[in-house]
């Protein structure tokens, strides 16, 4: 049986923690999460990792595999050449708890501040499939926070105080575009949401395991709504270059 070499980050802070090397036998169809489980079962039972579904549906097992933010349960071992080492480390954007587990509580705090779904009192709950395609796309989000991890505003500039990040722009878009929602989140998107920080690098879209078109379908339309009411530097620039986009 083929053996893979994994280097897994172990420790409770980045100063003292280090990568530990493990040899793991590789079965057909094995994913990185299986390898971590193998390590737990056979070598170090105290390796910290989150997971639930093992089917890319719950968004628990996010980590950085060879530097790329990914779901470990979706990252196949046979995608790596047999002589490469596979390096697994925690999400950089969030404070480390231990090994592959980070403290993602900030995301839950952000979510609380978004105005919830607010239907009209007299809504008759008739709406059509074509009205909700977009909303359903956004509601596929499994809250893996990979997009939050990769976004430079949060990752490199640590502006968690000012920017809610792509995940919650997606969430806001899902509410704003619900055919029966009556609330207006545009002003708070500008002020508390910090949507102006996003300069449309699209890194978030690239890592989204649910293939949500975060930038094109959620962020840009939201930015347009903000521009319609207020001012957004990036959109103004884009508009100057490309003219106003059709809504």
């Amino acid at each position, binding site marked *: 049986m083929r053996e893979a070499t994994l280097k897994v980050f172990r420790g409770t802070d980045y100063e003292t923690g280090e990568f530990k090397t493990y040899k793991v036998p590789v079965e057909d169809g094995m994913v990185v999460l299986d390898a971590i489980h193998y390590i737990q079962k056979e070598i170090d039972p105290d390796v910290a990792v989150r997971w639930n579904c093992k089917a890319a549906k719950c968004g628990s097992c996010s980590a950085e595999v060879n530097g790329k933010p990914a779901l470990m349960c979706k990252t196949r071992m046979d995608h790596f050449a047999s002589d490469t080492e596979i390096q697994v480390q925690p999400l950089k954007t969030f404070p480390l708890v231990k090994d592959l587990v980070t403290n993602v509580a900030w995301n839950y705090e952000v979510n609380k501040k978004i105005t919830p779904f607010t239907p009209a009192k007299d809504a008759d709950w008739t709406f059509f499939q074509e009205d909700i395609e977009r909303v359903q796309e956004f*509601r596929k989000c499994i809250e893996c926070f990979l997009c939050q991890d990769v976004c430079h505003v949060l990752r490199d500039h640590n502006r968690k105080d000012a920017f809610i990040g792509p995940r919650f722009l997606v969430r806001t878009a899902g509410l704003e575009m619900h055919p029966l929602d009556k609330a207006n989140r545009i002003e708070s998107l500008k002020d508390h949401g910090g949507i102006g920080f996003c300069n449309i690098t699209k890194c978030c879209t690239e890592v989204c395991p649910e293939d949500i078109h975060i930038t094109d379908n959620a962020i840009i339309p939201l930015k347009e709504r903000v521009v319609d009411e207020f001012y957004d530097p990036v959109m103004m620039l884009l508009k100057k270059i490309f003219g106003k986009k059709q809504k």
Partner: protein
Amino acid sequence: MANYEIHEHDILVIGAGGAGLRAAIEASAKGVSVGLVCKSLLGKAHTVMAEGGIAAALANVDSRDNWEVHFRDTMIGGKMLNNWRMAQIHAQEAPECVRELEQWGAVFDRTKEGKILQRAFGGHTYKRLCHVGDRTGLELIRTLQDKGVHQGIDVYMECTVTKILKDGDKVSGAFGYFREDGRYVLFKAKAIILATGGVGRSYLVTSNSWEYTGDGHALAYDAGADLIDMEFVQFHPTGMVWPPGVRGILVTEAVRGEGGILRNSKGERFMFKYLPEATRADYAADETEAKKWLEDTLSGRLKTEYKRPPELSTRDNVARAIYTEVKEGRGTEHGGVYLDISYQNAERVKKKLPSMYHQFKELADVDITQTPMEVGPTMHYIMGGIRVNADTAETRVPGLFAAGECSGGMHGSNRLGGNSLSDLIVFGRRAGRGAVDYTHKLGSAPQISESQITEAIEELEIPFKRQDGINPNDLVKELHTIMGTYVGIFREEKDLQTGIEKLEELKKKFKLVKANGTKVFNPGWHLCRDLKNMLISSEAIARSALSRKESRGAHSRLDYPKTDDSLGNENTSVSKDGETMKLEKTPLNKMPDDLKELFAKKEPAHA
């Protein structure tokens, strides 16, 4: 003595899947203070894995549907062993609970008239499952989560409760630890709602997540409640079988609801052979009729005069059929059978079953729009659970409530697909109300006993003190072998007896489990405690299975292959008696005559 932090709530809900969240929302809406504890992060509960839909007789797609038909389907699916009152409440309240979800922001797929779309599912007479593609569970969780966080519920994430505390016979609180750093926590509460889900981790091949270690079952058992019908374990007929890394992961029943066909390695559509006499008339007579049903379905016609394909038989039948085909040598290369949807238009398949498409593509290199899937049974659900009062969800322990998979009675001996999500919201809501009513009637707050806390702490500390103990993962492996070999799909007296003996040995070894490292996010240490719950629920399953000398629903005995009518009016009940598990047979509640009549006037079903 170790320190612990203290939180106080009127009601503590343990488990934040569909049932726990719904219960917490209900209780906090009534103005009491609610704490919600979950072993994982919020929104990751196993409910997200539910794919096919929520059963509710909205009659949006087939106007002939109503709660009475749903009730009857549920009882027939459960082989009449269900708590009739739960099945009635469930069928009556599910439509309202689904509408409520919509009003809280859930975005279900629509009919052409702009209403909630419903699909066919095994055992349901009419098209009844409200759904969002094949990710209905996620929609339910996210809707409840977002509703809940705006309602002032205090959520304690990644926290495991290890003991229910009592003042005399009444619940007074709970003790546990935070997974993040192992700090201990005491919750003072007047009432506790258990919503911890199932027991799947006792089996190797399972669709269940690590959380499913029978916590609620074991906590309730230790607190003095009884567990009923634990012999009824549902093997979902279609789990992935290949590659090994994904073995057991669920393939939604919606594949069959959308027309998926089961064939063995010889290409035979074998399900026609396995339809039980009693329900054969409800299914298509042959491939031609099944095809017509499908054509009607694909064309979007709401009603059809043709009967549904045999693949939509109840889960217990389909699981046994697949198991038998494989055992008799007609299985696929990897020990499953074929499930084929590739004959349909590829775009439709991708639209209707997007997660399945991706799941197979990414994890198995199989394009389900081009080739059939390989599937086989996987441990999925336990029908048995904590005995509750149907109306209030209260157990026999005052102040202790239970809802969702960890409770028993609702599904009898076999659960219909789609009846789980509806169970969660209907009885989550009931439990929330029941617990609030209880706290209102309760006079003074019950007292916490220091000695119970000391016990709880010692239990958690001891694995670190064992110098050369056993790795708990090794015991889990042994447990898997025992449950798979002796307490699997088909059962027999001598196997079950051997299984029980081996479980007894395992219980002895359990006293030697050890933990390494520190208390900071240490899954090995966590498992040392979870394993105790797995052992209690496994023993309950094995003992209950041995005691039921018949085959009924999901319980198949090779030595008693027939259903015995005289055993259809008793539940199996296990409870704690000192250090041993006491097993009793208790009579079923009598169904009132007006409900009985519903079974007499059963018209031939078309769907």
